[in-house]
């Protein structure tokens, strides 16, 4: 790594992940620390994403930093044809760190090669969104009290879901057992199965989302099956209600089971599940602020007491 940028979850070793989780825990205990006093963070959202931007900006604000940036590229000079290179060259004159989201894949990697100012990738197209992975892993750690040897069941769109792919890579350091539950059209791509095999990570694959599977699970990671992902709409109609979590499916589930979801949810988790103490997705989103505070301080080399 040329600088302390975070572009992809693969930039982090196991030690990096553990260090960030320790930091996140400190911010969870006390999020208001004025560690970024006098620092300016740029949030460059070439593609709008309100949820992610608010989470990052909350993180910076709670650290006492100042924010410059934009939330929609249509109001910036990139609509006049300015290259990303020029935008980055300009902004790194002003800011101590750049948090960027871009619709093009590889944009954050490229930006990190253009400047010594740390770049935090807040999503580049369908490619990477590493702080989401860090908050997912932090949520797993927090709810299970450990990361090693967990049974993780991932449900829904495993083909296109970038959070799923990054979670597999991020958790691969901790000897998990994965269960991949998806319709045929949205099965996990071969490369991630090969990745698991190479690292001796146990996994099962099924199209059947059943209480039997849930009962063997510590972490149930739900994702949305989106209609526009199907080439065959008949196929979508057949499976659209199969990957929905209902409260009655949790009856015999483990006490420590927690349900995660990257949000936004549509109908893949029924509303009545929200009341279950096992539903964790809203707190998961809250953990995003702590994980991002940790990533930001780590990238800037700031010591957290």
């Amino acid at each position: 790594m040329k600088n302390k940028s975070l572009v992809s979850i693969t930039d982090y070793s196991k030690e990096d992940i553990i260090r960030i989780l320790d930091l996140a825990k400190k911010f969870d205990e006390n999020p208001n620390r004025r560690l970024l006093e006098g620092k300016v963070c740029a949030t460059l959202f070439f593609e709008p994403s309100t949820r992610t931007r608010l989470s990052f900006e909350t993180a910076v604000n709670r650290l006492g930093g100042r924010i410059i940036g934009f939330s929609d590229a249509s109001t910036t000079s990139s609509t006049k044809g300015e290259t990303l290179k020029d935008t980055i060259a300009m902004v790194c004159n002003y800011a101590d760190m750049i948090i960027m989201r871009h619709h093009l894949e590889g944009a954050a990697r490229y930006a990190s090669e253009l400047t010594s100012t740390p770049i935090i990738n807040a999503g580049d197209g369908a490619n990477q969104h590493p702080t989401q992975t860090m908050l997912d892993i932090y949520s797993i750690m927090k709810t299970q009290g450990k990361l090693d040897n967990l049974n993780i069941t991932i449900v829904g769109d495993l083909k296109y879901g970038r959070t799923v792919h990054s979670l597999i890579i991020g958790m691969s350091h901790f000897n998990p057992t994965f269960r991949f539950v998806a319709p045929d059209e949205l099965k996990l791509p071969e490369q991630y199965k090969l990745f698991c095999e190479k690292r001796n990570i146990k996994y099962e694959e099924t199209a059947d989302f059943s209480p039997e599977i849930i009962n063997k699970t510590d972490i149930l990671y739900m994702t949305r099956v989106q209609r526009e992902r199907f080439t065959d709409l008949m196929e979508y109609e057949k499976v659209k209600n199969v990957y929905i979590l209902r409260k009655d499916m949790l009856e015999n589930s483990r006490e420590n089971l927690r349900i995660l979801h990257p949000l936004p949810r549509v109908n893949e988790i029924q509303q009545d599940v929200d009341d279950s103490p096992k539903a964790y997705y809203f707190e998961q989103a809250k953990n995003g602020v702590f994980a991002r505070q940790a990533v930001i301080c780590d990238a800037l080399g700031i010591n957290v007491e």
Partner: protein
Amino acid sequence: MSEKRKELQVAALCNGTAIDHIPSDQVFKVVSLLNLENLPHPITIGNNLESKKMGTKGIIKIADMFFEESVINRIALIAPNVVLNIIRDYRVVEKKRVSLPQTIVGIVKCNNPKCITNNEPMKTRFRVIDNSHVILNCHYCDLKIEKEEIILK
């Protein structure tokens, strides 16, 4: 090659490089890969020539030109079995085979239209993840490209 040929299929070279055993369908790709169209040197291109090993083949002879290793290794992307003959005074003084570099910068197009490299004035960059099957991995968007899918810029 012990058999005596009545005549050479392509005129002999005094000094320069002869690239032999190019698959016939790759000859013009090699031409553009080496940027030969912008070279002032005399160049002979032969194609669909008889070859015992390959059926037909192509040969490119470039007079007074000796390529750097890094340049000729680009050829391995599309024609891994070519042989380069370095010729001085009508004699082959060295035979070189090409080998695929670990990273390939600026010559292969990424096939992902949403990749940053297709949208910014910048060089592409690929890691070679499988030498024998020629499988590339985009350094920016992580797309895998197999040999048959390779498009040169």
